[in-house]
């Protein structure tokens, strides 16, 4: 027994958008070209006719898995709280949507349902009895800049302890082990006008926060989603206004930018602020939480070839060797599903400039094979 490999079809979002791959072709790719990977994860509102894909589809779906030797592992579900437009959805209404998604996941043979990192624990608790009765494991995603030591994980552990359930856990997104901004994100920002010195400052600050100890604690802003931090920082640069919990970090980024970057513009501040998106969570926590992991999102932004090693690939911004080591030490036997997200940083360059998602996922799986087998 060892760590199992699969792919979140989120990785192929661009191929689907530009109609290069359909769902069947994605499943065929996973089953045929990824060195024995067999797990399929998908986002319901991306991959399916939603909320009811129809009986004919369900038959086709199981036929594909039989044909390509794959299996449905996890369905990722969302929660848009303004769906009804005349009021904000209550927890009960959100729980109804989650329950409906759990039933859909069961119908399609999935064993796990992933909820967003921001879903309140009360909603998960309301849906838990249905998940148990259908033998579906609910996993709450822990996404950067959240940490494994934070309240999101504690709440899940408390609920597991209180209910004794075996159908609830966490889905670590390996972006939480990112320790510097991705090179493809920085290149994208530079094409938008950021100065190279801002990219360098962003990497330098991220590494200083990682290695600098207590003096850099105020740069750790893990309570928010990355999107909200980016939006709040943009508004801080424009207006100087910021919520108290973020003030020290934002002020620190601003000052650091002004030291490192000549005549900084808004895009330069934004680039340096990417240093705030790192989780700074610990590999020991990952090892200790192995029993609570339903499955893992193998997040990556760019797989580059290791210099001097043809056919060997690496993600330079995420500590994959450390992660796989901690998972092995904890005895993890579940799935790591490749989750490619860096395609968005090439989409400003037209069809000629976009990245090949199929190739990127193959490279990621090749790296996983090597690390898991080592």
């Amino acid at each position, binding site marked *: 027994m060892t760590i199992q490999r699969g792919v979140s079809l*989120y990785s192929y*979002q*661009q191929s*689907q*958008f*530009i109609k290069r791959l359909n769902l069947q072709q994605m499943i065929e790719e996973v089953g045929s070209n990824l060195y024995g990977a067999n797990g399929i994860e998908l*986002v319901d*509102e*991306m*991959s399916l*006719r*939603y*909320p009811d894909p129809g009986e004919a589809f369900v038959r086709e779906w199981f036929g594909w898995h039989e044909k390509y030797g794959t299996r449905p592992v996890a369905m990722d579900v*969302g*929660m*848009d*709280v*303004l*769906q*009804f*437009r*005349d*009021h*904000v959805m209550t927890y009960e209404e959100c729980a109804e949507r989650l329950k409906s998604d759990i039933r859909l996941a069961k119908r399609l043979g999935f064993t796990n349902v992933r909820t*967003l*990192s*921001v*879903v*309140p624990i009360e909603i998960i608790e309301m849906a838990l009895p249905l998940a148990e009765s259908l033998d579906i494991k609910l996993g709450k995603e822990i996404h950067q800049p959240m940490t494994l030591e934070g309240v999101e994980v504690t709440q899940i552990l408390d609920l597991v302890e209180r209910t004794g359930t075996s159908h609830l856990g966490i889905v670590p997104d390996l972006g939480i082990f990112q320790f510097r901004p991705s090179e493809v994100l920085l290149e994208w920002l530079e094409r938008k006008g950021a100065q190279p010195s801002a990219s360098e400052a962003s990497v330098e600050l991220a590494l200083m926060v990682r290695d600098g100890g207590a003096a850099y604690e105020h740069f750790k802003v893990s309570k928010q*989603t990355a*999107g*909200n931090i980016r939006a709040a920082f943009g508004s801080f640069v424009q207006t100087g206004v910021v919520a108290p919990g973020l003030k020290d970090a934002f002020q620190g980024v601003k000052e650091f930018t002004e030291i490192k970057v000549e005549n900084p513009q808004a895009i330069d501040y934004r680039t340096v602020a990417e240093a705030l998106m790192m989780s700074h969570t610990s590999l020991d926590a990952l090892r200790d939480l192995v029993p609570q992991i339903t499955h893992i999102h193998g997040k990556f932004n760019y797989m580059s070839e290791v210099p001097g090693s043809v056919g060997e690939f690496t993600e330079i911004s995420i500590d994959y060797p450390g992660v796989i080591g901690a998972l092995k030490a904890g005895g993890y036997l579940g799935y790591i599903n490749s989750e490619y997200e860096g395609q*968005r940083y090439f*989409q*400003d*360059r*037209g*069809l000629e400039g976009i990245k090949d998602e199929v190739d990127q996922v193959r490279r990621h799986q090749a790296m996983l094979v090597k690390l898991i087998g080592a």
Partner: protein
Amino acid sequence: MFESFLVRPDSLRNDVANGEVVGFSLAVRHANYRGCYISLHNGYFLEVDGVQYDRALQTFEVNGKNPRTYEQLKTQVWEHWDYDDEGILHVALPGGLRPGMHTIRLQQSVLAAYGYLPTDDEWVTSPPVPGTGLGSDKTPDIVSYEIELQNGAN
């Protein structure tokens, strides 16, 4: 996301009704990695050759139904706009657009995001006006396209 690909390049056409050109239309996709309930669709910031066409002039055609206003779409709380599907954005403009190339600037607003947000209550009573990036989740910048008017209907 998908900045270069939100508008189908061969989709800009004049709309004809009863023999008269009543406006123009173009085909658009989700500026995201997923679909959403159509009720969340809040319209477009749209500028053609420097002239802005606000939501009151726009209707949206999707799921094989006739073009609808955003006030009508808002009530369709169980109808889903699937990720794979194009929608046709229609704009009322008697006489339509002149032949040739046009500069289109566009931003889509869909009130879909991750979980509860501080803006939720405000957006129930007064949703953001497209163009500011608010309510534009994964693609908050206005995108510019140079495309040519085609013959025939969408």
